[in-house]
């Protein structure tokens, strides 16, 4: 029988401190107050003073509320019964199903040994030319979508999830608007994907501490399916900025010295511990992570997108409903785009380079300068590029997109104006109809 403690000596933010013995770091406890029962986790020990973060928040906790230590860290049931279920950030069912208790596994486990990883090798086709052609998504990649409030990032996330060839989809929602939660659930349902999905959802109205656990729960479930059932798992996390803000809140409560705009000094390590769970195994499944990071004030140098960018394998910028070609990057594309089609890289590089020149011309034009012959070609090209490649409604396979790329180039330029080497030109440059 575990001891029950009644003496809470400090309540500050969502952190309470009790005097107790024989408590382990990271251990869970139950806190019973007049508002009901909440889980709490040990985050600091000093002598017999134990600090706990209370998942449901500290509101309503009395100095004599009951604290009972459970002698175990946070766990999740590792079983196939997870599929089709929806849970809250504390791991309780959100749907009307029963709680699960089979094969409980620890969440937030250790890192994969780098020696067990393999070089990513499989492209994930999405039907979005800005992704497939220019920044190919690769199995086991961790990739954020950098965006700002109001952009259709959740729609993009859902569309990629539905079109990607994966076995299991796991959604981790942090600070989701209730509407967005319903949107994801309905989209999964409409496409018949609910039965191969697991959702961990923390909505904007839920206690803030629960937000912190969502990525760990989602990724522990992903690791279970990838290693025990050899499944290809796609994890969707939205919105990681809310997760970081929760970290900040707890850090400030714990009186940690902030490093940058109030965020704790270990923000990078905290994010990396989650994102690095993306992996591909030689003899088991894989985990791919797509995460939304909203940039406060559309500022990419804000600590959250900045630290994220250093961890993830590229990023997609979603601006004005389009994936921006500049800044967007898939670091793993080199692993796969040499095996798609021989002209893939050339089309990718050339089209982006010319689009960059188009942007410069556009600037000149807006300042009222006379347009040269070359400028006019670029203007024509830029407009075509935006309509045929960047528009998010375009939904074509990679090969079709590459052909369209050559067609666009040939409509606008002479071959030697493109800077493509002669051999490639001879092979791929579209022949003139009447030549």
């Amino acid at each position: 029988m575990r001891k029950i403690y009644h003496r809470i000596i400090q309540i500050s933010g969502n952190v309470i401190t009790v005097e107790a013995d024989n408590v382990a770091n990271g251990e869970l406890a139950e806190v019973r107050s007049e508002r009901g029962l909440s889980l709490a986790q040990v985050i600091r020990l000093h002598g017999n003073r134990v600090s706990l973060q209370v998942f449901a928040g500290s509101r309503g906790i009395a100095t004599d509320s009951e604290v009972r230590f459970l002698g175990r860290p946070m766990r999740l049931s590792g079983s196939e019964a997870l599929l089709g279920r929806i849970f809250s950030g504390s791991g309780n069912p959100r749907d009307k199903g029963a709680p699960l208790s089979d094969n409980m596994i620890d969440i937030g486990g250790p890192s994969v040994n780098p020696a067990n990883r393999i070089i990513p090798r499989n492209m994930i086709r999405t039907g979005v030319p800005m992704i497939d052609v220019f920044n190919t998504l690769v199995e086991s990649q961790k990739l954020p979508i950098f965006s700002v409030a109001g952009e259709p990032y959740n729609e993009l996330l859902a569309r990629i999830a539905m079109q990607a060839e994966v076995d299991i989809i796991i959604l981790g929602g942090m600070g989701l608007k209730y509407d967005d939660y319903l949107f994801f659930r309905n989209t999964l349902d409409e496409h018949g994907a609910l039965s191969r999905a697991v959702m961990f959802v923390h909505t904007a109205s839920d206690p803030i501490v629960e937000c912190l656990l969502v990525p760990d729960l989602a990724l522990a479930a992903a690791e279970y399916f990838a290693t025990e059932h050899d499944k290809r798992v796609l994890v969707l996390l939205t919105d990681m900025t809310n997760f970081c803000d929760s970290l900040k809140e707890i850090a400030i409560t714990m009186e940690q010295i902030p490093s940058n705009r109030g965020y704790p000094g270990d923000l990078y390590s905290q994010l990396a511990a989650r994102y690095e769970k993306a992996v591909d195994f030689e003899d088991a499944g894989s985990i791919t992570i797509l995460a939304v990071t909203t940039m406060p004030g559309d500022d990419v140098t804000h600590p959250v997108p900045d630290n994220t960018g250093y961890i993830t394998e590229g990023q997609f910028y979603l601006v004005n409903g389009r994936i921006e070609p500049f800044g967007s990057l898939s670091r793993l594309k080199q692993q796969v785009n040499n095996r798609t089609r021989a002209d893939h890289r050339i089309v990718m590089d050339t089209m982006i380079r010319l689009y960059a020149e188009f942007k410069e011309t556009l600037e000149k034009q807006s300042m009222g300068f006379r347009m040269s012959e070359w400028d006019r070609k670029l203007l024509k090209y830029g407009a075509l590029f935006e309509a045929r490649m960047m528009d998010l409604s375009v939904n074509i396979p990679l090969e079709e997109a590459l052909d369209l790329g050559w067609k666009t180039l040939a409509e606008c330029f002479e071959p030697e104006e493109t800077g493509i080497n002669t051999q490639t030109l001879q092979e791929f440059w579209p022949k003139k109809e009447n030549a």
Partner: protein
Amino acid sequence: MNELKPTGKVTGINGNMVSVAFSQRVIQNEVAYVLTGDNERLKSELIRVRGHEADLQVFESTNGVKVGDLVEFSGELLSVELGPGLLTQVYDGLQNPLPELAKQAGYFLKRGLYVYPLDRERKWHFTPSAEIGASLTAGCSVGSVPEGIFQHQIMLPFGWNGQWKLTWLIEEGEYNIDTVVAKASNGEEEREISMVQTWPVKVPISAYQEKMLPVEPLVTQTRIIDTFFPVAKGGTFCTPGPFGAGKTVLQHALSQRSEVDIVIVAACGERAGEVVEILREFPRLDDPRTGRKLIDRTIIICNTSSMPVAAREASIYTSVTIAEYYRQMGLHVLLLADSTSRWAQALREVSGRLEEIPGEEAFPAYLESLVAGFYERAGLVQLPDGGSGSITICGAVSPAGGNFEEPVTQSTLKVVGSFLALSRDRANARRYPAIHPLESWSKYNSIIPEEQVGKARRILRSGNEVDQMMKVVGEEGTPISDFIVYLKSEFLDAVYLQQNTFDAVDSGCGADRQKQVFAKILLVLEKNFHFNQKDEARSYFQRLRQHFIDWNYAPWQSEEYKNCEQRIDQALQKTHD
């Protein structure tokens, strides 16, 4: 030394910091082990003593540790094992071989599991070289074993002070590393020498005669570096840049193409996937200089971002200590640290938990001296036997927000000899490697005489000025002579500064080839062109660019290479008035 190890009891836990009450003697920076209820031994380092309480940074997760848990002090500083068998290894920051951990623990790392860094069983063929009775100092060789393509010297341990006389030497034969191969006496005591020695990572190995000025260029086969911003053997350089600017791709190119003996890759707090590429590719890739595989000259120290943060701090020191060990054998070592910012962040995390008064951006006030101390471990040295060896350090820096004003970049710039600024604008325009030609600088000698490089630099600078001016007055307001300068600088950028790392030929441009191509480019840059129309000039340079790009992609001295050169000569002649 037979007494029991001092012990203590855990009194507090805050993240990876554990406070311990102790009653015996403890040593700053000694290694201690926290013993958990599940019989795990968590390696830690003592980093502060206050009264009868010591603070340890634990190299593992502290989940499950309780107040009252036992702590064992080892009395030894954090050290690495040095001996034959280091090459081709993949270690974590504490020198545990990762493939061996994988065999024992499976997919995931397991805390509290530590493995010998070197193979105890493997036999090495030892050939004695010193004479009995010879007078030796620390770092002098007594014999050697072949390790891959190198003669791995077995040296008098670096910590032995003063003069030693060799009293006994084993005969030539096959031995494992723990075998005593020699004995030496300093007149007071006789000690045994085996093939392996340990050295505390945070203390530089200084068993050399003197440090020398680095003058010989280290050829990296990256044109913009070797020609414009060169690096010297024994020098230091840094590659700061925002994310996505190509730091890691550049480091990989350096690790593959650099003309040095040994490359040590310290993947410090960065993505695991990047290490995996090296791990899986290097055993397959040929090293054109030796005919062996690239992995044969490589050691990987890998403490990636999701591995414990305190071990990340140690990994930088582990790698530079191993580099110093090989330098002592008269070899040229290149240490690639990616990224020193993650190391600095690890320092920041620890400093925060110690509740030290923070400096700028909460980095500790002593950041600068630690950064300087690290880079100062590079250098070209004269060894006791008269030979020389070098360590060249390249540190990637990941400045927050891509802003070079931040503390880590600034303290790095104070101590390096070459600065390769990676720029987001160039990366966005796909101008790789995205080293900015106007912001970067180097204090070392180029493979091409400076007066020639200076001419090219002037073209780049004036080309940039014209470009800026054109943004204001437009192309039509620019005189054609200025416009041609602009075209020349764009041409130089496209065919020489930019280089395709993913192309088998273009990725490696040797010194001789650089000299030849650069001479030809200089012809173009110095030529007086006469065009009537700007469009005419533009299309001429576009054609010229085409020829040079084809040339860059042609294998060195092949038929194709010579044909391309001819086409360029013809194109250049056509414009003669």
